[in-house]
């Protein structure tokens, strides 16, 4: 019984982890059609922000929940102004440009900040579930993922900015005719995607640690989740994370992490064979 509960917590944490790493990409790639290969580096920048702010004596929670999204969001806006805005509608070109960008960011961070930084540890303690001990931080990750999903729905559906952003992505010409400025909206949307990614990087930093090359560990999973999810940002990310996270984690429990990764890829491939446009092309079609 206690084992089942522990497995459930770990499954939820895996799902939460996938939601965290892919929600920003869902906006940048899912909504804006920018193949952002530098997504993993945005996560890394969030992690670095937390670690460097921690070294400078700033409270870890402030660094994680405020500074990381702010810094990475601003970096995202700068990148959008310098590179991305010339590449809208040219999906393959964005792939090449952001790949170069990712190499640049890794090199830049290595040279400027070095790659041997002490990680941060956040003490949320641990609690007992029968014979097992579970980290309190796992619960925090699950909660953060839930907050992000709900927050994104609320923003896209409930605010004027969300409405404008959705409208502009659907038909920029019409949005411009109505007196809005699509370039500005693209910039802000990209910035929000980057900020969410930075937040995720900050939240994950205490358990994964930060090195300049850490993005590689996340980039494939993030893209697989977003593509499997399909067009709807929140419902897609949520459903794909739930499915893939559960499959990989349960397989890992039953066998080994290697087989767990294989199972995740297998399910994603099989699913895309059946639903080439992702889960939300058939289910949750009218949701966000």
């Amino acid at each position, binding site marked *: 019984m206690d*084992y089942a509960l*522990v*497995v459930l917590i*770990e499954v939820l*944490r*895996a799902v939460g*982890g996938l939601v965290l790493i892919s929600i920003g990409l869902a906006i940048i790639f899912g909504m804006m059609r920018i193949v952002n290969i530098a997504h993993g580096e945005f996560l890394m920048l969030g992690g670095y922000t937390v670690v460097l702010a921690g070294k400078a004596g700033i409270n870890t929670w402030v660094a994680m929940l405020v500074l990381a999204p702010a810094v990475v969001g601003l970096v995202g806006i700068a990148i959008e102004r310098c590179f991305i805005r010339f590449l809208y509608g040219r999906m393959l070109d964005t792939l090449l440009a952001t790949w170069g960008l990712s190499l640049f960011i890794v090199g830049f961070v*290595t040279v400027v900040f070095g*790659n*041997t*930084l*002490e*990680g*941060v*540890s956040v003490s*949320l*303690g*641990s609690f007992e579930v029968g*014979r*097992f*001990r*579970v*980290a*309190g*931080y*796992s619960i925090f990750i699950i909660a953060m993922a839930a907050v992000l999903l709900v927050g994104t729905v609320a923003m896209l559906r409930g605010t004027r900015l969300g409405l404008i952003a959705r409208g502009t992505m659907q038909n920029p010409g019409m949005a411009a005719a109505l007196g809005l400025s699509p370039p500005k909206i693209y910039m802000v949307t990209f910035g929000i995607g980057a900020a969410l990614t930075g937040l995720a990087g900050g939240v994950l930093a*205490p*358990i*994964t*640690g930060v*090195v300049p*090359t*850490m993005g*590689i*560990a996340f980039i494939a999973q993030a893209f697989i989740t977003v593509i499997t999810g399909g067009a709807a940002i929140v419902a897609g990310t949520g459903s794909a994370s739930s499915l893939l996270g559960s499959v990989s*984690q349960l397989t*890992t*429990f039953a066998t*080994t*992490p*290697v087989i*767990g*990764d294989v199972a995740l890829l297998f399910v994603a491939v099989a699913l895309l064979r059946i639903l080439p446009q992702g889960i939300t092309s058939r289910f949750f079609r009218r949701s966000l």
Partner: protein
Amino acid sequence: MKRRDFLKKSAAAGATVGMASLIGLSARAQGAEILIGGLHDETGGLDFAGKPMQQVLGFAVDEINEQGGLLGRKLKLVTADTQTNMQLYASLAQQVALKDKVSVVHGGLTSASREVIRPVLRRFNTLYFYNTLYEGGVCDRNCFCTGTTPAQTVQKLVPHVMKKWGKKVYTIAADYNYGQITSAWVKKYVEENGGQVLSTDFFPLDVTNFGPTIQKIQAAKPDLVMSVLVGAAHLGFYRQWAAAGMKKQIPIASTTFGAGGTEPILITPEESEGIITCYGYYPTIDIPANKAFKTKVQAKLGAMPPAGNGPLLTELSVCTYEGMMLWAAGVKKAGTVDRMKVIEALETGISLDMPSGKVTIDPTTHHVTRDVYLANLKNREYVILESFSQQPPADTQAVCDLKKNPNDNQHYQIKL
């Protein structure tokens, strides 16, 4: 600057560079300098380990030059950055062997990289020193391995921690040849000491999520966890282990933690406290040779991180220094840098007093007999618990005899 000036100046500069390289060529032809090749990962994922090895190799070369060089000639280091990239290992090994014609190559970090460059250097008759702790079993007359092997370290570590903590062991290991072979050694030694390995789990190098593993370990209830994890991603295990409050429940011993030196810096002191390891070198070894070595390195290159920007002194970097010194002793004895004569000189069993203690070449395996130490991490400092004098590379000795089969060229693997 006017365009014309610029053209003039750059032409002049070009000519100077050209002259310099011409002079370099003629110098090599006369044999004024002895060239030493260094193939290390100065950049890329493993640069934290490769860069100190490179720095300390340079330090060793400088030290020999300050004492007048070798055979009346100065040494010159030719370095090539392999960038943690196997293709580059292959091409750069060819480059230093064929283009630069170095007398010896020091380098390689992972076992994978060693197996890329070892055949290349053998083919092109260039002597090779591999200065990393590894899984043992390389048997090649052209190659000297100066790091420790499992018979020297794991054999000491396992009984020590089993006596201290108990007989049930849970092994977690990196999923490539080093992890697979080393965890096989762990199993062998645990069983020889009357214990039991409850499970051995392997992890690809990019795994960061150890949640299920931590719960599985708790379900298995071992007396201790033996970690053969490798690399930055795997450090997540120690963090998540501490976060789950397991540090006080089940202790950890490791064949890899801190081997490259950065692990105790990357994670907090609380997370690394109490991990027991066994290597051929620790900065805290209390012998005069080590103190003198540390002072010299610090004066020249700076203090060790996190205090300064000097090289991390670990088994990796210090064995690189010792490998260079052993080769130099071989050259002195042979009176030439000729590859075969140096090998024969080294095979007389050259022995030196080094920072890690006495280091002696084992002629039959081309590995070394050296002192080995057990240490416990306390607030990022290695507290030496026990030292073992003059441990032979027994694992490789069991399979390799270069005296009998000088043409042997294999990487033997343990069979259990």
